């Protein structure tokens, strides 16, 4: 051991470290450390191979693919509607938002215009999904920093959301709610009231979490100034979503390229200033509040009318009661189930502002009911690519906080 490593250096103080010359040590004292793929802080099956110099990380090599399930190959082998359940399992913290992003990208190929009610339903479920995802993100982030209680509070709220999802879609978790050209079913009676009741109660819970974390000295010490991402780096590595906005870049596709009628609603886009772990947490908690705002506006002016594109006979299967009572609808349903929705040839790229970032679908169609090629642009995949640059220079214990603040999901990262 060379004498420089025994010097006491305060946590996260990069300047002091450089002054002590720790970053210019010889190679002989380094240690390789393997974190993951089964590790509590990696939120799934991420693996990091670290090169340590004492407690300092000098090099970080992420290894992915432990959850690579071949979604893109599967998509080439089934009809458009059959793929909807697989989109649930991409970012499995916000299945509803994934469903919507996928459905809109296919609809863009067909040039289909959806009725207002359907769009409003989609906006509503997207924002509920955002709340559910951020609640888990904050809870788990607190847990990574050593606080167990916020996790319990956020999970209580998530369970309320699960009850709402179950009533709407029939499933707590993997919802598969959209179809190409509409949604699976209309909203149940009285459901909107229960959603607005939930939205009224939620701020109390988020305030509680804020009380526990936002001004918590330990939490501040562990997150402030850690994992700072500059604006330039954030753009260069293709970060999107809250991680990009925490670095101070005003990019929200709901504002910049509105889809599904987002332009009708009034909301703010929270922006960070320093791009550290603390800012990423603050951005998320503010986004939850903005989502509540959007939901209240949607409910206040909920359109009536059809909840699916009625004129799209070759794309959307009619509701069950019509199938059972009319021959024409029966045949229409049969054709869509067997041959898939008939999508014209062409290529399309669509990105939606998902809780984790911009989830994009690039679809190449050669006509018929099966895509020729489908590429899923996963926000977590791009967000994680910055790790190689971000992690070196931090202490080993900062890894948990940095990973927690990036809020990624391996299901969509590896696909």
């Amino acid at each position, binding site marked *: 051991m060379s004498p420089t490593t025994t010097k006491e250096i305060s946590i996260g103080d990069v300047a002091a470290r450089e002054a002590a010359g720790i970053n210019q040590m010889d190679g002989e004292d380094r240690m390789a450390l393997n974190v993951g*793929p*089964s*590790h*509590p802080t990696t939120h*799934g*099956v991420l693996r990091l191979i670290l090169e340590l110099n004492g407690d300092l990380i000098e090099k970080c090599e992420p290894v992915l*693919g*432990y*959850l*690579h*399930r*071949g979604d893109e*190959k*599967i998509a080439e082998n089934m009809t458009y509607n059959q793929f909807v*359940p*697989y989109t*649930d*399992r991409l970012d*499995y*913290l916000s299945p509803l938002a994934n469903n919507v992003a996928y459905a809109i990208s296919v609809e863009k190929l067909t040039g289909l215009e959806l009725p207002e009610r359907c769009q409003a339903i989609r906006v509503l479920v997207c924002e509920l999904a955002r709340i559910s995802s951020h609640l*888990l993100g904050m809870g788990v982030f607190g847990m990574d920093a050593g606080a167990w209680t916020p*996790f*319990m*509070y956020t*999970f*209580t709220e*998530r*369970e309320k959301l*699960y009850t709402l999802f179950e009533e709407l879609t029939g499933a*707590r*978790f*993997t919802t598969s709610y959209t179809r190409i050209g509409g949604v699976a079913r209309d909203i149940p009676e009285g459901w909107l009231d229960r959603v607005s009741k939930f939205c009224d109660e939620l701020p109390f819970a988020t305030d509680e979490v804020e009380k526990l974390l936002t001004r918590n000295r330990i939490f501040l010490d562990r997150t402030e100034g850690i994992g700072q991402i500059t604006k330039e780096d954030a753009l260069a590595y293709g970060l999107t979503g809250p991680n990009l906005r925490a670095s101070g870049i005003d990019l929200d596709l709901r504002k910049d390229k509105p889809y599904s009628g987002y332009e009708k609603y009034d909301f703010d886009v929270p922006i960070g200033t320093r791009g550290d772990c603390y800012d990423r947490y603050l951005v998320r908690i503010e986004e939850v509040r903005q989502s509540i705002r959007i939901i209240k506006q949607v409910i206040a002016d909920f359109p009536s009318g059809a909840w699916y594109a009625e004129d799209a006979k070759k794309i959307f299967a009619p509701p069950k009661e019509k199938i059972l009572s009319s021959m024409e609808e029966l045949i229409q349903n049969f054709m869509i189930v067997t041959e898939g929705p008939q999508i014209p040839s062409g290529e399309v790229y669509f990105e939606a502002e998902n809780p984790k970032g911009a989830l994009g679908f690039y679809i190449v169609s050669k006509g018929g009911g099966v895509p020729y090629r489908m590429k899923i642009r996963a926000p977590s995949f791009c967000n994680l690519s910055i790790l190689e640059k971000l992690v070196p220079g931090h202490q080993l214990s900062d890894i948990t906080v940095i990973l927690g603040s990036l809020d990624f999901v*391996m*299901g969509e990262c590896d696909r």
Partner: protein
Amino acid sequence: MIANEVAYNGKVEGDVIVTKADAVINWIRKHSVWPMPMGLACCAIELMASAASRYDISRFGMEVMRFSPRQSDCMIVAGTVTYKMAEVVRRIYDQMGDPKWVVAMGACASTGGMYRSYAVMQGVDNIVPVDVYVSGCPPRPEALLDAMMKLQDKIGKESSVKALTKSASAVSS
């Protein structure tokens, strides 16, 4: 009296308990299951939900989730096991001390589920012996709780003493 129950009747025996060794060992084992959450994919979130406020797995004495295989005796495989992950799952299983049990949570871990593809192992039972399979994609927390109680029943019926003496003789020989 059922052979697997701990017999205790203070009025007759005073402070002495007379029972079978198997019953005592199994009774101890089944009420102190320390799960190792092998959270791989979507099911891991439902696993978290069952540990969180509404479902509260600690009602059944299994809340001590340990991420270190050395400290745990029941591996809950929650999620899709890919071929790349398979070796890791097996290595972690090997590191767990005996006796150990495995719960395959969800369709993916049980059979490969909806992922019939080149990258996914069609069931974790290809590499580790599974004690309880849970259906569902993902299973509800209630289903997991039920599975854990089934596992307790199973542990209660094992012939632990035989297994102990067998492994001891295997070591000595």
